[in-house]
Structure formats: structure tokens, C-alpha cells
């Protein structure tokens, strides 16, 4: 059986006649055929278009003619009078509908660079402004002038606190186990196994309890806040709040900041206890008694160390909650924007946690805490 003959490809022929150019189109003009390049046409002439040789077409033909019309030199016009009425109307209508629309100018490189620089500045500015708004909102609410969405506060407390407890306990316990094993390697060499308790307890109380809980909060709470508030941008719910005279930051962010600040320190206490328990499991497995271990813990962890951990936990709570609320508030109102907000909230939150932890380490050292 012979193969069907290939469809004639779309082609253009330009001829000159009686002061006008003639554009004769032929072949089958379909979008999957590949369209010919626009011909070079002189300025200030009239171009008659004919499709006598066209064997068939879909929207590729009016699209090509429309594209050609937009590329014409100054003073050159297309004469579509020889086209079938429907086709000519389709091309002409596209031109009419857009008669007033100019091409958007592309910015020169330096201006683009300037735009980028000022948008980076704006980004920092927005972050600072959001912190200011949060602080102002907290202040207004404290003096009874602000409005926050207290209706969802209990739910916020639950999701930030009890819902996170299992993962906090698990990771806290495992952190204690890991630290105990690491401690054993070194302390076991000098027969000081009993000091595993001191190492684990002090590290968990001062450092790891708060830090691990903060990281967990960034991973689950910040991202949740960012995607929730970002979605509200998409559906214009944030605008709707503004429209009725509410301040979105005050109304939405302040309850979240308070919910996380109320629950995260408690979670860090649980994480610390779980870590100490994890260390004890390893210590008992290596021959230490539970009583010995606990005695060492009580001796190692002073009230001051415990309070240092709690202070950090409060700060980390504010950071984790703020990162989520901020990224959500500035999220672009698109599906992708919401995804980016969630990702950047986690990254921003964890980065700020580590920076803050380093600052605390220096400050605690300076003040002898």
C-alpha cells in the first residue's frame, strides 16, 4: 500500500503589480506544519493578501496574518479584501480589539539592575515593617485597642502545642541518645562514664531542647502559617479584612505569635526531659545505674541553665511564628507563590534560629549565665 502524499507545506510568494505588493499564500496552513517566516515588505505600501492556493487552514493562518500585521513597516497596510469574510473578520477584529494597546517597553539593563536593588531593599524594608506591625499589634491588643482573631486561638494553641508533642518527644529522646553515645566515646576512654549525665542534661537544658523544638516549629508551624496566610492572599481574603477596616497583621499574625510563644517553651521542657531520658537509656545500657545518672543530672543542671534554655525557647518561638506569618503576608497571590512562601518560611526561620542561638551564646557568656 502506498503512503499518502505529504501535505503541501504553507508557503508565501511576494509579487509586485501596479504599485501594490501581492502576497500569495499556498499550501496547508496548520499549526503543526510549521509556519513560514514573515516576508520583507517595504515601507509605505499596500499589500494585497490572497489565499487562492491555500488547501486548508486552522487558526495558524489568521495568527500568522495577525503576526505579520504587527510586524509591518511604517505606513504599510494589509489589504484583506480578497480573503473569505470569516477569516478577514478574525484578523481585523484582533487588530481592532487591541488598537489602543502599545507594546510594553523593555527596561534597559541599568534600570533592571536598579529595580532589582530597590526590590531587595524593599524586601528588607518589608520585613522590618512587618516586625513593626507585629509589635504595634501586640501593643494595641495589650491596651485593648487592637483586634485579633481570638476565635481560632484555641485551635492555634492546639496545633502549635499538643499536636507537636509526639514529634518533639521522639526527636528529643533520640537527640539525648545520640549525645550520650557521642559522650561515651570520649568519656569512656578516661573512665568518666558517669559524666554522660552532665553532658546530656546540660546540653539539652541549655541548648538542644530549645533548638530542636524551634527547628520542629519552623518545619511544621511556620510553613503552615505561611501557606495559610499566603492562600488568603490568593483568594483575596486578606484584602477583604482590610476592606472592613481590620489590620491583617494584627488580626492574623498576633494570635499566631502568642500561640507559639505560649506553647514552644513548654514543648522545649518536654524535649529536654525526653533527651535526658534518652541519655539515661544509653547510660543504663552501658552499666551506670539510673539513680547515679539522675543524681548527676540534678547536680549538672542549675536553675540558671534551665532558665537560659527557657529564654531561648521564647525567642525561638517568636522567630518561628514570625517567619511563617511574614512569608505568608508577602506571598505572591499565586499557587507557586504560596509554595515558595512555605519553603522560604522554613529556611528563614531555621536560619534566624541559628543566628539567634549564636547571639545568645555570646550574650550568655558576657553576662556569665
Amino acid at each position: 500500500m502506498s503512503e499518502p502524499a505529504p501535505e503541501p507545506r504553507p508557503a508565501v510568494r511576494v509579487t509586485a503589480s501596479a504599485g501594490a505588493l501581492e502576497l500569495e499564500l499556498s499550501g496547508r496552513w496548520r499549526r503543526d506544519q510549521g509556519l513560514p517566516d514573515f516576508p520583507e515588505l517595504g515601507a509605505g505600501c499596500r499589500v494585497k493578501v490572497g489565499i487562492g492556493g491555500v488547501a486548508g487552514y486552522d487558526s495558524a493562518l489568521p495568527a500568522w496574518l495577525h503576526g505579520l500585521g504587527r510586524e509591518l513597516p511604517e505606513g504599510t497596510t494589509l489589504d484583506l479584501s480578497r480573503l473569505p469574510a470569516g477569516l478577514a473578520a478574525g484578523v481585523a477584529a484582533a487588530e481592532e480589539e487591541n488598537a489602543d494597546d502599545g507594546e510594553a517597553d523593555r527596561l534597559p539593563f541599568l534600570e533592571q539592575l536598579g529595580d532589582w536593588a530597590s526590590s531587595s531593599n524593599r524586601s528588607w524594608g518589608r520585613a522590618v515593617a512587618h516586625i513593626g506591625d507585629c509589635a504595634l499589634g501586640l501593643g494595641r491588643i495589650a491596651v485593648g485597642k487592637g483586634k485579633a482573631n481570638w476565635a481560632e486561638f484555641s485551635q492555634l494553641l492546639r496545633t502549635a502545642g499538643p499536636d507537636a508533642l509526639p514529634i518533639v518527644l521522639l526527636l528529643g529522646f533520640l537527640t539525648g541518645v545520640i549525645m550520650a553515645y557521642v559522650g561515651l566515646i570520649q568519656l569512656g576512654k578516661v573512665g568518666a562514664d558517669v559524666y554522660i549525665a552532665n553532658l546530656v542534661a546540660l546540653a539539652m537544658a541549655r541548648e538542644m531542647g530549645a533548638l530542636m523544638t524551634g527547628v520542629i516549629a519552623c518545619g511544621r508551624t511556620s510553613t503552615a502559617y505561611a501557606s495559610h496566610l499566603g492562600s488568603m492572599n490568593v483568594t483575596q481574603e486578606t484584602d477583604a479584612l482590610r476592606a472592613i477596616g481590620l489590620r491583617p497583621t494584627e488580626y492574623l499574625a498576633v494570635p499566631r505569635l502568642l500561640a507559639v510563644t505560649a506553647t514552644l517553651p513548654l514543648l522545649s521542657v518536654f524535649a529536654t526531659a525526653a533527651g535526658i531520658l534518652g541519655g539515661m537509656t544509653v547510660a543504663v545500657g552501658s552499666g551506670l545505674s539510673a539513680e547515679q545518672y539522675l543524681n548527676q543530672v540534678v547536680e549538672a543542671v542549675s536553675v540558671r541553665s534551665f532558665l537560659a534554655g527557657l529564654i531561648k525557647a521564647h525567642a525561638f518561638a517568636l522567630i518561628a511564628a514570625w517567619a511563617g506569618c511574614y512569608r505568608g503576608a508577602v506571598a505572591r497571590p499565586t499557587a507557586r507563590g504560596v509554595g515558595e512562601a512555605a519553603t522560604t518560611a522554613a529556611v528563614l526561620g531555621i536560619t534566624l534560629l541559628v543566628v539567634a542561638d549564636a547571639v545568645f551564646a555570646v550574650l550568655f557568656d558576657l553576662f556569665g549565665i
Partner: protein
Amino acid sequence: MATEPRVRCLDLAVGHEGRAIMSGVSFAVEAGQLAAVVGPSGCGKSTLMRALVGLSEPLSGEAWLLGERLGDLGETRREALLRRAGFLFQGSALWSSLTVRENVELPLREFGGCGARERRLIAEHKLAQVGLLAAADKLPSELSGGMAKRAGLARALALDPEVLFLDEPTAGLDPVTAARLDALILRLRDSLGTAVVLVSHEIRSIRRLADFCVYLDPSTRRMGPVGKVDDLLRPGGHAGARAFFSPGTPA
């Protein structure tokens, strides 16, 4: 030779979770015809439209699209059939992370079989047809309601559909924009012979556009009369349909 209607339904019943909200729907739309499915809010217009395209299963009856019975088709065949139809959603449903041009180009990229230049030319032409060429690089969130509707229409037209389903295309638009959109729909129908099924309760648009109306009667949850607007308004006609088209006058 009689041609197969582009859209046909026979005794169709549609609803949610097994409960019919509209039943007994039968009509056919030929090439170059524009049928308006009308009725008060909540009578099942959009649900019927989804069933006509196969986006939801009817409870009973038959829906035919471009000569094929939707219930008989496998997933692949149904998807191929849907590419020959265009759908403008009530909320425009533009992909929010793509620009307007990319929204129109996406069906062409996936199913148009054309190269980047052809895709761009066709997308720009479609956008020009709806008067949105200057907004081609905007994101949907930067468009007004009317612009989003027009962008949705440009996207629906991307693959030169043989049937166009329009769900409330002019709802919420100002009269001037609505009239322009109506004129565009008529031009498409006339120049391309597209069959159009329009769901609307905008009486002005229905009067301008519809070759015939299918009235869905929420009081009986069954299809009411089918005919031209003037026929439905005749004295002694269906009371609900008359009240719908002449609000404020006794039925």
C-alpha cells in the same frame, strides 16, 4: 445529509452524591448554533454543563459530544475528545502561576503539536481577539474580573474547539465589557461554525446570543420549555420561564 449534532443529551439527570437536582434534560446543538441553558441560581446549570463535557458523571441518561457517547468512552478517548472542546469556567480558573500568554500557550504546547514560534503567534492572536494582547505578560492576579474572563476565553479557544462551553461568561461584568464579549462569542460562532453551549442568567446576554434556550425549572427539578426567548415569553407559556425572562412582571 443530516449532520450529527455536536452536543446532544437524552433524558439526562445530574446531581450530587446520587441526589438529582435536575433531570429529564434533552436537547441538541448543531454546528454554528448557540444554546443557552438558563434558569435561576442553583437550578443545576453548571452541574449540567460539567456532565455535558464529562467532567462529572450524570446520574442517568446519555450525553453525546461530537458524535460520541461519553459514557462509552475510556479515559484516553474522552481526554482526546475534550481537546476538541473549549471550556470557560465560571471563575475563569486561570493557572495563577502562569502569565496570561502562558495560560493560552499551555494547551498548544501539550496538545497543539506546534513549535514555539507558532505557539506564540497563535497565543498572541487569540489574546488579540479578546483584546488582551497588552496584558499577555501579566499574571492572572493582576487582571480584573472581565480581563480574566476574556483570558479564560482565549485559553478555551487555543485549540480551535469545535464546541465551546461557556459557564457564566459575562456574570459580574459591566454592560460594555459584557456586550464586547457577547460580540466576540457571536463572531466566533459565525466565522468558525463553532457550536456553543452557554450557561447564564444574564438576560441581556441570552437575548443577544442564543439561538434557543433550555429552561431548567427548579420547582419541578426537570427541564422546562426549550425555544427562542420570544417563544418562551408568549402568553400562556411556562410561568417559571416567563418570570425568569421578565422579572417583576406577573407570570
